[in-house]
């Protein structure tokens, strides 16, 4: 290999491994934010018994969820491309959690697809069970997987991470629906959103407290650091502020603040991990990264495409912006 345009023996820029650490967590964050409100809608769906309202909830996420879900594949494959050792260890060490999560996604994915195929109560009920069950278990198990990544085998922090992801999904799902539905439904949903936000904030504080007390994953010192404190204070501010906005019917502003919660959560994950990338093995970012040529290549080919993908999403959400029209999963 002599005539490549790319440098073979050095990273394009010195900080490329760290940039990829950020890129992988960016994909993770996009997944937690975008599929998060899909999960939230799926969980809140269980609170609706009126057929028209259920159809409205399905119509709210119908055009976008396929695309939202691709972020989990983007996250997984980017992790494999940049940090194959972390990818393989994380999934092999947490086999049942990972398989459980993907099976929950299967149920969540096919539930609405099945529901619209037959107009029969029995059929719809079981399709709804699949949809709601998948929507609860997917974030729960994915959160627990993230918990295992951060804290190793410490059971309580792992379970709390899972529950926290469910709560933040409900909060963002409620805010998304409130911003897109008629006032009557929105005002009923905001109570769930506020409850979930408070539960999430409380959960994060308890989780971090447990981590400090037990030094789970060796993260006690990091939790007591300034960046973590800043993220926690910001989360509490944004969460409480969002709740006030929700009470006053400022649903679009509430949505903006609610989406900040999973964003801050992802930043918290980044702070807790770096400079290691898989605490149970003590692997550092720079030890786990692939060789310069491979990383340069995925950077040069992949980053422009990532920008294009963000443009696609802007276009997609633009086409389907505004209040939900009509009903039904297939528009």
């Amino acid at each position, binding site marked *: 290999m002599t005539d490549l345009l790319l440098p073979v023996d050095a990273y394009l820029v010195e900080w490329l491994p760290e940039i990829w650490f950020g890129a992988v967590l960016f994909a993770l964050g996009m997944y937690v934010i975008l599929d998060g409100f899909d999960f939230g809608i799926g969980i809140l769906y269980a609170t609706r018994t009126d057929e028209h309202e259920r159809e409205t909830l399905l119509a709210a996420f119908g055009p976008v969820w396929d695309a939202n879900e691709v972020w989990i*594949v983007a996250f997984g494959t980017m992790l494999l491309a940049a940090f194959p050792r972390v990818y393989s260890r994380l999934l092999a060490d947490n086999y049942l959690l990972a398989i459980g999560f993907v099976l929950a996604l299967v149920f969540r994915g096919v539930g609405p697809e099945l529901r619209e195929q037959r107009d029969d109560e029995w059929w719809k009920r079981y399709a709804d069970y699949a949809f709601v069950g998948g929507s609860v278990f997917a974030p729960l198990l994915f959160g627990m997987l993230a918990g295992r990544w951060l804290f190793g085998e410490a059971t309580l922090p792992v379970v709390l991470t899972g529950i926290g992801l469910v709560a933040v999904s409900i909060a963002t799902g409620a805010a998304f629906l409130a911003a897109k539905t008629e006032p009557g439904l929105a005002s009923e949903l905001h109570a769930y959103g506020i409850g979930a936000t408070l539960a999430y904030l409380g959960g994060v504080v308890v989780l971090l407290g447990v981590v400090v007390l037990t030094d789970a994953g060796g993260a006690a010192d990091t939790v007591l650091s300034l960046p973590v404190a800043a993220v926690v204070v910001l989360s509490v501010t944004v969460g409480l502020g969002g709740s006030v906005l929700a009470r006053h019917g400022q649903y679009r502003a509430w949505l903006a603040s609610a989406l900040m919660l999973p964003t801050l959560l992802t930043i918290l994950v980044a702070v807790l991990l770096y400079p290691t990338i898989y605490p149970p093995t003590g692997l550092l970012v720079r030890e786990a990264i692939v060789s310069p040529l491979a990383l340069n290549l995925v950077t040069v080919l992949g980053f422009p495409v990532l920008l294009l993908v963000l443009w696609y999403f802007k276009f997609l959400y633009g086409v389907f912006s505004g209040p939900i029209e009509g009903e039904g999963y297939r528009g």
Partner: protein
Amino acid sequence: MSLTTLLSTVGPGWVAFLSPELASRMQFGWTISVHIIFASLSIGLAPFIIYFTWKDVRTSEQRYARLRSFWVKVFAAGFVMGTVTGIPMSFQFGTNFPQFAEVAGELIGGPLAFEAKMAFFLEAVFLGVLLYGRDRVGDRTYLISSVLVGFGAWLSGFWILIVNAWMQTPRGYEMVTRNGVEIAKLTDPFAAFLTPRMPWMYVHMMNASVISVSLLVAGVSAYIIWKKPDTDVWNTALKLAVVLLIVSAPLQAVHGDAYGRHVEDTQPQKFAAMEAHYETGQADLHLLAFPRSLEALTDPRAENLITVSLPAIGSFLASGGDFEAEVIGLNEYEENPPVALVFWSFRFMVGLGFLFIGLALWGGYLTYRGRLSDSTRYLRTMIAASPLGYAALLTGWYVTEIGRQPWVIQGELRTNEVVSSTLTGTEATLTLVGFVVVYVGLMLTALYVLKWLVREELQALGVRESSEGRWHGPIPGVSDDD
């Protein structure tokens, strides 16, 4: 490794769990078999949907809008199934074969990430527009969305096959030790991504998808025409499917023949397994072969075959014209793939391939005579043939994948070296059972979705449903002979 060592008895006495290796291989084989059906449905339907959307936008004829709407719904259902079966696959490299992910991560990670970013997002985002956006975007944007969805599906296959082709004919890397583990380090991206196998696999797989979906579209159209003979809409669909079949079915045979010679050059062991050819030297072509005992069915070296053969034709095909050519036999290798499985899968695929050419020619003749939609015999045959494209596609895939064993990366890394060391037989077996149950449910669901869509269409065409739930069309205006 023999079957008895693969089957371990780690269960609580009354139950025997499979070994992690066997269960993982079965799990991966099973999940990819189901996934591949839905993935190729997207690939094969793409040209139909683009054509119907284009005609709809250009001519505003009702029949094209109707066909587009019907097949986009099938595409969407297939895409959902493809997504939900594809996500577990993107995890299985890590959960079941972590050593493979770790060793080959530099080579396979990039293409897989490109697939997600370049192809999968494109398909998913613009499918949302295609499904829900007819009234929200202009004609041009709508048409472009259909093209982008189709392009995404074909691009997705491109990146996935780059990975698989590299596993068949690996190049562009060197083995180095990093963090105490020997891994494949990327040294030449052009060599690694554009392996000798890549163009062969891509043409064969994309064309197989087009054949499979053409047969499916022809079968569904034939069924609806059979129930409701005077429907212009479905005559259009049937004709298009037959035209695509006339192009794609013979192409597959010509291409497949050349592909076989390439396999003989690059993976002689797989070629020998395809032909059950044991002794190096002149090769016969076995048309039929049976093991002498039932035990041999599961014997990976099932060499005791009773055969019906054409002498020297194997050499002729392998070399492209030389009856005397030497073909390397399976006895040259210490370990071979399960020969019987590869041998039979190959024959099944080739046999079906010739059947499809026959169906294409028959359809071409009827079209020429202007009687395509009038021949009850042809309509019934095409209804029966509608799942066969997938049978050929899957058996072809088994030839490719099982034929590569015992290697996961040909000549470099064995499958039994990459199975997770922390995985227990219990976990692997139970999750295998879970995947089998859930995916059988998914496939039944997909079939029901298709059935309901067809029923809806028949209702729209005014075909009555009797109290027994069976369909009775108006008096068929079709002849019983052709």
